[in-house]
């Protein structure tokens, strides 16, 4: 039956062409109009026009989504790498604070008063997968969304299409087009999420870079102040030796110290509190809520540090 309808359509076109041969080139325009017109009507009746539109739109949104996804992946990869590098740099500062600065300060401070700095640096393990965006699905396949395929019509579909004067194929084609239009809206949601996620990563990185700068600046100033304090302690020890003043339990008497050195001691004491707070906190995860992976990473780092020390 469907073949019959197609053959009728073809015969109309053939007849039009035959007339063209007979009458000559003068009616070419009319023939083309008839051809285009009949194809348009045919597509409209069967719903093929909607199917073609759906296919076109599916290709367009797939292309657009792919472009956005590639750009997102590229940007997020760079950002996650930067985040990892910054975290690693912060970890180095944390270690340096305990290993170098605090040990020097403790050594000097104990010349004046008993002092200890407890705890240890909290080294963060950066797992990029935690910061990767989840729940993004991509454009669904044609199989999921196409209710009809005019390029591969089944006999049953043709039969029902003819019996319902094209209503069934038309409504399936329309349903297909609407599915794709819905998909377009859906992937726009995903694209908006990707852009939001990139912004969030960028700002988190900026915040982390600020913290890295805080570490750099404060450790620098701490080292400078430590140097000044070291000079103060040395000069006071020298003074006591010259005046033959005995040191009680090997310590200088802070009551005899000039105020400027007490102020230096106080500044270092308070700065140590600040640096300790900075070295023992996490900047991406809450401290104290370390997951197993974090703990494992810390253990591994400790192991490596100890090995290095032994080797040294």
């Amino acid at each position, binding site marked *: 039956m469907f073949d019959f309808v197609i053959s009728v359509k073809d015969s109309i076109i053939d007849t039009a062409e035959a007339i063209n041969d007979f009458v000559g080139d003068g009616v070419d325009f009319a023939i083309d109009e008839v051809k285009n017109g009949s194809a348009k009507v045919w597509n409209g009746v069967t719903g093929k026009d909607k199917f073609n539109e759906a296919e076109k739109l599916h290709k367009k949104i797939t292309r657009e989504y792919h472009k956005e996804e590639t750009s997102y992946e590229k940007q997020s990869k760079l950002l996650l790498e930067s985040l990892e590098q910054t975290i690693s740099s912060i970890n180095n500062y944390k270690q340096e604070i305990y290993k170098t600065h605090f040990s020097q300060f403790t050594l000097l*401070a104990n010349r004046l*008063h*008993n*002092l*200890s*700095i*407890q705890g240890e640096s909290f080294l963060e393990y950066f797992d990029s997968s935690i910061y990767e965006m*989840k*729940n*993004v*699905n991509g454009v*669904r396949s044609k199989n999921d969304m196409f209710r009809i395929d005019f390029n591969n019509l089944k006999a049953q579909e043709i039969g029902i299409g003819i019996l319902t004067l094209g*209503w069934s194929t038309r409504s399936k084609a*329309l*349903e297909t087009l*609407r599915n794709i*239009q*819905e998909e377009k*809206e*859906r*992937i*726009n*949601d995903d694209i*908006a*999420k990707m*852009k*939001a*996620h990139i*912004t*969030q990563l960028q*700002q*988190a*990185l*900026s*915040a*982390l870079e*600020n*913290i890295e*700068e*805080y570490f750099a*600046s*404060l450790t620098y*100033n701490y080292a*400078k*102040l430590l140097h000044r304090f070291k000079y103060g302690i040395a000069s006071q020890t020298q003074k006591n030796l010259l005046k033959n003043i005995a040191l009680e339990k090997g310590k200088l008497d*802070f009551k005899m110290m000039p105020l*400027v050195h*007490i*102020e230096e001691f*106080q*500044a270092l*004491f*308070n700065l*140590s*509190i*600040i640096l300790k*707070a*900075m070295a023992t906190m996490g900047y*991406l995860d*809450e401290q104290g809520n370390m997951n197993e992976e974090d703990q494992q990473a810390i253990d591994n780092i400790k192991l490596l540090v100890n090995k290095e020390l032994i080797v040294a």
Partner: protein
Amino acid sequence: MNNEKYTIKELSFDAMIDELNGTSPLNMSKKLMEYELFDQQSSLEILNQIYEEFESKEDIVDELVTPVFFNIADGLVKHPKLGLQKTGITASRLVNEIKSFSYEQQHTSERDMIQDKQNLDENTKTNTLIRPYDRKTVEDKKKMKTYKENHLNQNGYDEYTNQDGVANMRPQPDHIVPLAKAVEEYGTSKFLSNENLKQTLNEDFNLAVTNGSLNQSKGSKSNSEAVNENKNTIASKQTESTKKQMIQKETEAKSAVEKELNSAVAINLKEDIKTVIQGKSQLINDAKDQAIKDGTQKAIGEVVILLIKPIYYEFNDIFKNGMIGNLNVNDKIEAFIYRMKRVKDYVLNNAVGTFFDNLKNLLQGFVTMLINGIVNAFVGLLKKILQVISEGFTAIIEAIKILSKDKDNAGNPITPAQKADAVVKLLATTAVTFLGAYFEESILGFMTGTPVEFLKDVIMVMLTGIASTVIVWLIDQADLFSVKSEKRLMRVKEIFELRIEAIKKNTDIFEKTSIEVLAKQKLQFKKIASNMHHAIENNLNVNDAVYEMANFMHIDLQAKSTDEFLALLSTKKQLVI
């Protein structure tokens, strides 16, 4: 529809600035990662949820089961003894109005198709004359005699059997369309006088000369009845050609009688219209009287619904959210006054619209009754054709209204497919209503004469309502114009547009505030660090810079002055950080 479950919580610029300003610079990265610029639902989950909205099983209950129960309730409400049938107040109307009520929505009156049909039937009854049959008033013996003589002189054959020599077989003139039948069928028109009937029924086209025996056998029956009746002598004794001839004669006579009578009706209607100015037109007066009667009751019903809706809403809201609820008032008395004022304002604001709606209904009712009056004035086949057109008049008006509407009551645009769908449903329900009325006798005829006969009207309203609901549901299921997917697409667009807008807005606020706060913090830090550096390099007291730094980082210090520090050194043998 409810958008709550799809909504993404929006960030507020001021709230975020306040929050970030109160956050330690050391916690900024963590804090910024904690913000939810979008929810954790995947877009595919959202899409599936929207699909479920359109395909959920609950819809069958909402769209079919509940309305069917309301149809049953409507039937009971429509019982004549309650006197509510013309007010348009039905269970389903009330529930729908209350359910969809909001103060933003305008009140509009609704068509009650079953009531419209009942009004029309009532009007038809008023327009139908019960004319007692009296043979003497419609029989013209002189004309009959003249016809018989002329026929015998000119032809002399039996007009039914076609046999010659009827003169010798007790010839008699027969009214082909019998007088009693004609009075019963055509006498119902108010615009036909007995004289009109007498003149037409005794015209040559309704007379046939036949033998006395056949005429006696036929009696008061029509030709077709006489021919088809098994026990009748005509059916058993007459030849097939006689029977065929009788039927043919009847068809021709009926057509000629109806044509003649309808011409008389047209003349009489014309005369009646001429008396409109004097206020004596029967046609206009009858239509006016019934339109006013029906319109007044409908108007009362509309006013009742207009009042009930906001009052119910307020009571419901009080029970759900308390007297004060979400109102921006201080106490319960103020809330009560506010609520009552809101009801009053709504009623007054909609009063004018309702008045014009009722006036429009009244006019539409008048035109419908007028057309019905004209239709009932005519007789025969023409009447039936006109009846179909006139009874569909209201439906046609409604269909035109739907087609010319751009937006629905909620302000949403109506697409061509939705219009086509609405028109098909309207026509289908109209057809069901009329078919129900036409087949009332054959469906519920068994109840006639029984003690439960009074329930006939009620059951008919229920059955017609249920049939209409089922038809609408079936049309919905068939989705002839793909309206369902169109509506779903609109819903998908609405939801995702809302979500995307929220995500973009959140991203924008997030970016602006975080850039602003991070820049501010960086600047602040640089200033403190620079002071510290300056103090260290120039052998000055560094402590002020350290206090500032601790404040900046929201860190609590043990010694906030040198005196406190000295006290600490004096009292504690061991300092622990």
